[in-house]
């Protein structure tokens, strides 16, 4: 089996974010690392985040930093990754790519202990960069420029210190003196020698300054001093002329200002009043804002509270350090303060947000200061505060993030054409169920009912130069309705259009006149109101029309074509007639190329399954240039100029290709390239769009021509970041559509469906999925679908949180306290009003502030029944007494009257630290009542461990409890043990069954294939895996095959060899005798690994599904970073050969951006086996043309054919 791996949705979580002017000039931009993806974001004028460029680097980005050479206008990006190389990138605005400026190898690849890449620090003046590892190694590179002002990089200077753990590094701002880097280090050499543990207890963290002597080209340890043992992060303090220099050391509970030859200035970080005493407060992200006159720091704690830190400083150094409560936003991985007054918050889980500063926290608030620091016998006196609503920030945009996907299932509960992906995302109060549908999201602007059932709709401008449309023209079976677009849309009768007949086409013709084509003629309405009417000869009627702004072709019944052109005076003149052999099915004229008078091509589709290209040139007018036969009569034709390729921010500096698109009656969209000179058709590709013949309409997307295809669902063909994409829209079936532009809506679509007129715009271009989010209460763990009742049952649990009642009580208390305070001011009435408002705004929404932290042994959990259609929770059971749910399944016990029951595995008082322990485990059995909308507890059965896996098996319940696999039957008061097997190595995390086989996944030891013998009532393992795999997801593929994913980011398939499988099935004892003998303490048979691939992200769910109607199945996976990918099995050997060769050439010609070897990355833990990386292959169109041709030559194909193959492979999946 060969698989094709393709990422359907790139990771949405963010590892690290930096801001700067990467394209030069004054525009503020953000570069984010999303694990293996590097993207450039820019907030536009409206404050919406736009992704300009996104590239997969086939490596693991661990750190990012930006620097600017003195006097330069542009920032460079330094990337620390797992490649064992330092890479400096520059954003190329013209080509919209990241250019690699330097790549210097310094060590082994991989995320290792002593290979630098984990930390990056930049000299604030951009003269040097330090790259560090978790332990021992630190390298300094000197950055400079040569005579041509190009960036140069020196050979590395070592600042290693062995037996030292490094916690954080940063540059120290010391103006133009020698660059200094600061590091928090811990020396463990003594602790390792001393087995009594005394030295380990005394080990102390140090803050060390490393000085780079630019004259001697040497790095030396300049200064080292003890620092608080909780120190975890360093922040550069501006120096030189801007500030006192030095660093802020963020430690647990404290922020300390340190500098060489300066006393420590220490202040406590204020604590939330409800925080348990044993918990510290840790700073997890920091941002600096620096202006000419002032600077401040924003530090965010692990609970989401942001503090503004300011320093009072003078000639004699820093005198006071103040920490003031600023605002609370969800915990971030990185924060970026943009010079334009925005704060970009890259959330560690859940949606990212862009905030605008309303104030910079100058108002009085809870403040802790170094001068008021009180030290008592119990330590430093804490400062308390209560989080409040946003005061200084206001959120203006957010970017959706699925991180982390906890579970995912694909089903068609809504009975739509394609199945939906149900994914459990997020954590704690920010968790949600997201329903993903392939396609673009629509925002509907207006729906209005019309008097009859319309057949068609057009929009027209009054003049070519107008920005907006003037009329919407709707055609009915026997009439035409004209609506004028102004502040409102209303019917008009003075437009000059004939309203007593249906229309076939309405458009602007020439510069300023309108044309209406109806079955009996052409009505030409001049700008001054004169009307010219052309009537059809005899009793013939017009059946089809094709036109662009200057040319019109009509087809009469019987197959006669008549060609008109607009002459110099704006008059419509008949030019030529042509008799076709039969009736015309459809027509289209190519758009007039810029600077020309006419277009040369007319496409005519006939009922004899052909499409002809006719010339419209005066010399060979109506000559057939080429003929294309198609599989079914064409229904609709559209010429589209596609300027797809790399280059420029809009991808437009490439010669345009003219595509002829044809919607065929069998529902296929047929696309072929038209040679701009000869009119020859080549390079055809077809794609099934839906059950109805696609009708094609030209629209505009971001000012460029795009295509709307209306089949049983609408599709949009458009250009995004240089690629032509054909994506379904998540909208109902439409009959007819036209582009729509007014001052409320610049780029919309007006369409008719049924008896309604709809106006909508298309949002979030470039995304593969559109999502509907339903909020949940706690971290979702797993869920089951009930396909018949169309309901979901979700289990959610959170560690270290208070129960709902406790939270409610605490909240009430807080509001009462707050109310009391305000009461003191008097004015009762106002107070009450204010109080009401507060309730509405929900000033302490958990989503923003998080749940209050409780002791780590407290658990909250709930079981929820959810109706996805109405997004309504029909039943929510909060578990009591510290119980948390971990597994769920539906089960039908045989010969019982209850029907389908729900089994939920829970644990009470589970603790991981210092040792995994629990009070008890339980299996709850619930009965569905009220047609599945509610649950009723039948009984619960105590078990000795955490039941992490449950599954129905032959009318009984299989449970994996710790290392025991046990079969239960339903009793009156509890579950009854029937059979068990205790021979599993660690902990069972997944159980799947098929016929009499049971596939058990162990947390650490991969899969075990088991069999149940009913007559002997015995469970035994007949095969297992030889490789230790820390399973995070598993899926049953077929009788002998399992797919699994491990903690390290690998996906693999194992298969039982055919002969072994047959032997077991034929053996009357079912291999039992062999089992009793065993082999090497394991099962007698071993499964074989048939597929292995490193995804580079922890895969948390696997599922086999087909996302397109009638398409083949593929395996879909969801990951912790919020990406979705697919593994598609190849069906032919030719494809395997083609793609493996393409992959090979791509590896050679286009090595990954950040220096990781592609093969090495995909084989990071185990050698890659039989998986071709589609993500790499899909980078083919981004190569320069000559390289594309070179690779294509090697493969004996043209670049166009390769693009077509890539497109086909993608279309098989989505």
């Amino acid at each position, binding site marked *: 089996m060969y698989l094709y791996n393709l990422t359907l949705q790139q990771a949405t979580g963010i590892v690290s974010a930096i801001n700067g002017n990467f394209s030069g000039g004054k525009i503020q931009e953000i570069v984010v690392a999303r694990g293996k993806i590097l993207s450039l974001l820019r907030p536009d004028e409206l404050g919406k985040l736009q992704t300009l460029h996104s590239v997969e680097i086939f490596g693991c980005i661990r750190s990012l930093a930006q620097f600017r050479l003195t006097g330069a206008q542009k920032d460079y990006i330094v990337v620390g990754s797992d490649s064992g190389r330092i890479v400096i990138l520059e954003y190329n605005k013209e080509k919209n790519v990241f250019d690699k400026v330097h790549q210097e190898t310094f060590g082994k690849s991989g995320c290792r*202990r002593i290979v630098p890449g984990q930390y990056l620090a930049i000299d604030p003046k951009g003269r040097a960069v330090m790259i560090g590892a978790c*332990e021992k190694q630190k390298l300094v590179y000197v950055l400079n420029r040569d005579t041509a002002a190009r960036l140069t990089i020196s050979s590395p200077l070592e600042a290693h210190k062995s037996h030292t753990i490094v916690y954080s590094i940063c540059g120290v701002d010391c103006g133009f003196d020698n660059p200094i880097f600061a590091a928090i280090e811990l020396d463990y050499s003594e602790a390792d020698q001393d087995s009594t543990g005394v030295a380990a207890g005394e080990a102390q963290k140090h803050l060390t300054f490393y000085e780079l002597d630019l004259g001697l080209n040497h790095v030396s340890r300049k200064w080292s001093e003890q620092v608080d043992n909780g120190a975890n992060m360093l922040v550069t303090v501006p120096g030189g002329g801007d500030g006192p220099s030095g660093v802020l050391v963020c430690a647990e509970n404290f922020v300390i200002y340190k500098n060489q030859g300066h006393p420590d200035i220490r202040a406590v970080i204020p604590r939330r009043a409800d925080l348990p005493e044993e918990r510290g407060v840790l700073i997890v992200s920091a941002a600096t804002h620096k202006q000419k006159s002032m600077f401040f720091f924003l530090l965010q704690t692990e609970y989401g509270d942001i503090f503004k830190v300011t320093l009072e400083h003078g000639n004699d150094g820093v005198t006071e350090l103040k920490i003031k409560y600023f605002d609370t936003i969800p915990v971030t991985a990185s924060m970026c303060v943009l010079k334009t007054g925005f704060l970009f918050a890259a959330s*560690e889980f859940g949606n990212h947000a862009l905030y605008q500063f309303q104030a910079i926290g100058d108002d009085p608030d809870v403040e802790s200061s170094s001068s008021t620091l009180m030290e008592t016998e119990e330590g430093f006196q804490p400062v308390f505060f209560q989080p409040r609503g946003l005061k200084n920030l206001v959120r203006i945009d957010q970017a959706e993030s699925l991180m982390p996907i906890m579970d995912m299932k694909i089903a068609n509960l809504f009975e739509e054409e394609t199945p939906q992906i149900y994914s459990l995302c997020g954590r704690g109060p920010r968790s949600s169920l997201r329903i993903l549908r392939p396609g673009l999201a629509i925002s509907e602007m207006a729906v209005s009912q019309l008097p009859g059932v319309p057949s068609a709709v057009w929009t027209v401008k009054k003049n070519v130069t107008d920005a907006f449309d003037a009329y919407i023209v709707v055609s009915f079976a026997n009439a035409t309705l004209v609506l004028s677009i102004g502040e409102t849309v209303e019917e008009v009768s003075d437009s000059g259009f004939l309203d007593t007949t249906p229309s076939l086409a309405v458009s602007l013709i020439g510069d300023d006149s309108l044309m209406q084509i109806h079955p009996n003629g052409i009505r030409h309405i001049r700008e001054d109101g004169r009307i010219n009417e052309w009537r059809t000869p005899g009793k013939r009627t017009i059946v089809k029309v094709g036109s662009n702004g200057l040319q019109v072709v009509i087809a009469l019944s019987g197959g006669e074509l008549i060609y008109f052109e607009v002459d110099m005076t704006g008059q419509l003149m008949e030019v030529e007639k042509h008799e076709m052999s039969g009736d015309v099915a459809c027509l289209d004229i190519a758009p007039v190329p810029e600077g020309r008078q006419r277009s040369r091509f007319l496409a005519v589709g006939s009922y004899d399954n052909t499409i002809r290209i006719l010339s419209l040139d005066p010399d060979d007018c109506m000559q057939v240039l080429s003929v294309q036969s198609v599989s079914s009569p064409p229904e609709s034709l559209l010429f589209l100029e596609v300027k797809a390729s790399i280059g420029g921010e809009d991808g437009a500096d490439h010669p345009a290709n003219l595509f002829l698109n044809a919607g065929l009656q069998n529902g296929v969209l047929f696309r072929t390239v038209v040679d701009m000179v000869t009119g020859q058709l080549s390079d055809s590709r077809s794609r099934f769009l839906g059950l109805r013949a696609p009708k094609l309409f030209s629209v505009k997307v971001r000012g460029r021509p795009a295509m709307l295809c209306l089949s049983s669902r609408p599709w949009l063909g458009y250009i995004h970041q240089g690629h032509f994409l054909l994506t379904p829209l998540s909208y109902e079936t439409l009959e007819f559509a036209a582009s729509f532009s007014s001052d409320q809506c610049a780029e919309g679509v007006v369409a008719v469906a049924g008896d309604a007129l709809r106006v909508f715009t298309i949002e979030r271009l470039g995304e593969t999925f559109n999502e509907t989010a339903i909020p949940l209460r706690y971290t979702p763990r797993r869920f089951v679908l009930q396909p018949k009742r169309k309901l979901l049952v979700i289990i959610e649990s959170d560690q270290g949180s208070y129960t709902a009642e406790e939270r409610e009580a605490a909240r009430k208390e807080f509001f009462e306290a707050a109310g009391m305070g305000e009461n003191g001011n008097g004015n009762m009435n106002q107070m009450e009003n204010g109080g009401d408002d507060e309730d509405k705004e929900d000033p302490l929404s958990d989503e923003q502030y998080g749940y209050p932290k409780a002791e780590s042994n407290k658990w909250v959990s709930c079981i929820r029944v959810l109706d996805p259609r109405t997004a309504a929770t029909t039943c929510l059971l909060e578990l009591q007494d510290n119980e948390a749910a971990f597994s769920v399944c539906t089960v039908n016990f045989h010969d019982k009257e209850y029907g389908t029951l729900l089994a939920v595995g829970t644990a009470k008082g589970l603790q991981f630290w210092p040792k995994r322990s629990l009070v008890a485990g339980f299996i709850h059995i619930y009965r569905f009542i009220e047609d599945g909308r509610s649950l009723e507890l039948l009984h619960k059965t105590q078990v000795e461990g955490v039941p992490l896996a449950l599954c129905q098996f032959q009318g009984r319940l299989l449970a994996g409890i710790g290392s025991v696999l046990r079969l239960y039957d339903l009793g009156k008061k509890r579950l009854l043990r029937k059979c068990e097997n205790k021979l599993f190595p660690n902990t069972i995390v997944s159980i799947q069954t098929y016929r009499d086989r049971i596939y058990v996944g162990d947390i650490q030891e991969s899969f075990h294939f088991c069999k149940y013998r009913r007559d002997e009532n015995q469970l035994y393992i007949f095969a297992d895996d030889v490789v230790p795999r820390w399973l995070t997801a598993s899926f049953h593929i077929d009788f002998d095959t399992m797919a699994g994913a491990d903690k390290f980011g690998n996906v693999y398939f194992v298969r039982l060899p055919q002969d072994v499988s047959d032997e077991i099935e034929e053996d009357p004892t079912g291999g039992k005798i062999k089992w009793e003998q065993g082999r090497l303490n394991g099962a007698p048979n071993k499964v074989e690994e048939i597929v292995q691939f490193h995804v580079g992200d922890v895969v948390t769910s696997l599922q086999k599904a087909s996302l397109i109607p009638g398409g083949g199945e593929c395996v879909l996976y969801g990951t912790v970073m919020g990406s979705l990918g697919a593994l598609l099995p190849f069906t032919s050997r030719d494809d395997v050969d083609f793609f493996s060769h393409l992959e090979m050439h791509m590896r050679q010609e286009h090595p990954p951006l950040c220096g990781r070897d592609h093969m090495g990355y995909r084989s990071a833990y185990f050698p890659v086996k039989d998986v071709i990386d589609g993500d790499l292959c899909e980078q083919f169109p981004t190569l320069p043309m000559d390289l594309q041709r070179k690779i294509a030559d090697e493969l004996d194909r043209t670049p166009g054919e390769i693009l077509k193959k890539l497109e086909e492979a993608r279309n098989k999946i989505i």
Partner: protein
Amino acid sequence: MQASDRFNINSQLEHLQAKYVGTGHADLNRFEWAVNIQRDSYASYIGHYPMLAYFAVAENESIGRERYNFMQKEKTIKSCSSGYEVKC
């Protein structure tokens, strides 16, 4: 040192041991071995952000706190050097 010594297997090993922390040798005891495995693992968890996030979800802590915990001396130094509780 003679020229031949440089290519002698022992000196090569010594060189490796000095250069790459955690390279084993014949007299390695179980605690040294375990402490190396442990430090390698924690360094790997910290380097692979998705794995760090996975742990953070499991323990319901922020990713920053998880990273901090993995690097504290309670985990990286104490647990093995004083010879108690080796969970490998």
